[in-house]
């Protein structure tokens, strides 16, 4: 039997009021990183292989009895900013070192000065490049969790066939241009092999360093994007691409590479030589251990080896609910003991699959020394053994882009300039002048609070 009208009305009204309340609560509630104070939350880290899991186990023990919650996935700027603004940051965060200066300048990260003292951390144990990149105005904000080296990968078979030698001299820019032109192949209008890939925009700092220039002053306060060395480096790197069919064709071929598969660009002879990060040697060792890979340092115009490094670092966000534990956590994650134990486990894991273990590059000098001398051993695969030796050797010739308060904006300024030139929208000088104005304005604004 239907309820009387008055009761029906009240029931409906109660339902509407309840719905309103529920929606309001749902809207205001949001998503919290840590729903209770016993949970230690990380952001920007995924355990992945043994190198991550073993260190995470040790770090979890170090912060016991806190319950460690790993929010898997890459560092997300939007998520981090929202969390800090809402006063609900994760306990600890791992991010690209190039971003640390920007967040530190805005007060989103805590200085690690006290943490270093408290934990008795020996900063000399870490690679200077990684420490410098996370140090703003003399204050350290991050400890390195990775150290990405860049070496020249050479497809020896292809290069030898075309030039009669299996090495590439990057110090001779005119010779490198001839090399690139002679190795490229085309099918009609389509590019089918890149002779030499300068890997710009991402490796543009490498070309600038090779040409004796700098993107920014050592103190991170003055942009140098329109200096003659930087302009010349861009003109040359772009001309390398233009000589091989232009950016459109070049990028289209690059985008079609099966980078992580057995049919990768080296295995399929789609590229002659190019500078690349160390992790890719590891990928090649797993997917195509039989490729005729050559590895050599990238040489500047004086013929000296240079190694452009970058990577990730651990930092403690402002408002972290577990500051002391966060300090313990990152000290443990980046300690030589943790790296060595993790590398040992990873080496076993890799060897069990039959692939060559190509070493790990940690940003911790002591860990690197032990891993190279005690864990890594020649596999008999000459190409990858040589690659590992080269990677350990180039670490002493490293440089990084100095930390600066503009962080992402500074990087975006020079990357956009390179892209505008590549897409034919601007000439190098004009693009870099515009980038210089943008970058210096961003630096001045970001540094305002400190003066």
């Amino acid at each position, binding site marked *: 039997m239907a309820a009387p009208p008055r009761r029906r009305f009240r029931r*409906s*009204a109660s339902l509407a*009021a309840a719905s309103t309340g529920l*929606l309001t609560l749902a809207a205001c509630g949001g998503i919290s990183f840590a729903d209770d104070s016993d949970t230690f939350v990380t952001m920007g880290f995924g355990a992945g292989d043994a190198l991550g899991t073993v260190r995470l186990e040790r770090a979890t023990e170090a912060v016991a009895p806190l319950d460690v919650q790993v929010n898997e996935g890459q560092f997300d700027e939007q998520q981090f*900013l929202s969390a800090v603004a809402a006063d609900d940051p994760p306990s600890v965060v791992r991010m690209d070192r190039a971003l640390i200066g920007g967040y530190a300048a805005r007060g989103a990260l805590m200085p690690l000065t006290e943490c270093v003292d408290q934990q008795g951390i020996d900063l000399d144990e870490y690679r200077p490049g990684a420490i410098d990149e996370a140090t703003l105005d003399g204050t350290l904000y991050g400890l390195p969790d990775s150290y990405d080296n860049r070496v020249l990968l050479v497809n020896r078979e292809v290069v030898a066939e075309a030039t009669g030698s299996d090495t590439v001299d990057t110090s001779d820019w005119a010779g490198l241009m001839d090399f690139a032109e002679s190795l490229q192949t085309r099918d*009609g209008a*389509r590019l089918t092999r890149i002779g030499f890939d300068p890997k710009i925009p991402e490796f543009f700092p490498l070309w600038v360093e090779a040409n004796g220039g700098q993107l920014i002053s050592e103190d991170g306060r003055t942009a140098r994007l329109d200096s003659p060395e930087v302009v010349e480096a861009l003109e040359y790197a772009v001309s390398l691409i233009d000589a091989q069919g232009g950016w459109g064709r070049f990028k289209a071929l690059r*985008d079609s590479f099966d980078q992580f598969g057995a049919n990768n660009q080296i295995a399929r002879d789609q590229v002659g030589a190019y500078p690349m990060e160390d992790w890719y040697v590891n990928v090649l060792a797993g997917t195509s251990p039989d490729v005729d890979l050559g590895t050599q340092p990238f040489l500047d115009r004086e013929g000296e080896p240079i190694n452009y490094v970058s990577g990730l670092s651990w930092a403690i966000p402002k408002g972290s609910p577990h500051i002391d534990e966060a300090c313990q956590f990152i000290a443990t994650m980046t300690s030589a003991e943790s790296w060595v134990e993790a590398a040992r486990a990873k080496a076993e894991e890799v060897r069990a699959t039959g692939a060559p273990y190509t070493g790990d590059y940690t940003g911790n000098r002591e860990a690197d020394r032990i891993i190279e001398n005690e864990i890594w051993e020649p596999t008999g695969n000459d190409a990858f053994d040589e690659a590992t030796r080269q990677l350990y050797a180039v670490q002493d010739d490293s440089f990084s882009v100095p930390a600066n308060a503009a962080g992402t904006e500074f990087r*975006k300024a020079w990357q956009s300039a390179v892209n505008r030139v590549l897409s034919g929208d601007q000439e190098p000088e004009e693009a870099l002048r515009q980038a210089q104005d943008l970058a210096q304005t961003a630096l001045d604004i970001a540094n305002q609070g400190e003066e």
Partner: protein
Amino acid sequence: MSDPATLAGTGRRARTRRWMASWRNRDTRAAYLFILPWLVGFALLTAGPMIASFVLSFTNYDGIGPTKNVGFDNYRQLFDDPSVATSMMNTLVFTALRVPLSMALALALAMLLLRVTRGSGFFRTVFYLPVMTPSVAVGILFLLLFNGNVGVINRALEFVGITGPSWTTDGSWVKPGLVLTTLWALGGTVVIYLAALKNVPQELYEASELDGAGRWTSFVNVTLPQISGALFFTLIVNTIASLQTFTEAYTAFYGTANTQTYSSDAALFYVVYLFQQAFQFMHMGYASALSWLLFLVILVITLVQARLSKRFVYYEGEAR
């Protein structure tokens, strides 16, 4: 003779009295109670943030540090920042390409569907299904289909002897490529046009036929005026959506660190730039000013369209 101002005041008071009196009616109270969830949602999730963003547009708020009033600095910066003009121009070009093309294509599809008698439900579903595809997937699809070297589009063009452009890297082809990709999901507009076409009185076609009108004349003089209301609605909705376009371009060119590294200005749409300023560069105050500029641009374009609609749009029952 009464003063018009007094009369107006009396009218306002009378209306207020009538409105207050209406609250004595149980049905009125119930009606307000039932729309309360929407009102609360609107206040909290739309009006509130809009007011907040207006206030923030006069500050240097970055979400972290102390906030101070910067007056009209953020609005002045809009005119000095070259990326504002670039992104606005990109967005307007994209809108100018996408809106007419999507409307014409949707109308053509709707007219085809109108002729289908058997299995019409199936075809309607098929045309609507792409609307369900997440925009992020469409962005990824763009990179795969439009790759200059191995993409399906260029392979197909090559098959007929045409060398396709570098859709994803050549600045002149990025926007047309994105327009073509977004046309994938025009099922919603097709459904609206189909409903409008079904409502066109048959006797009008019969009368035009008796007058000797051909198909094209009937289409121009009968069909278009009769569905002009639906056309106007989709024009407004699609224009606003295009001016606010974000997901496909962001996914394809800015979604990851890798794609961001290679992103050229050709895909820098206004909302993408706004997002960068807010969440990557942490200039929330400036981003708020950017959002109010977009609001004004959309408002002006919509008002112009509404004004023009008085000349071109026919609503049933209105005197012409």
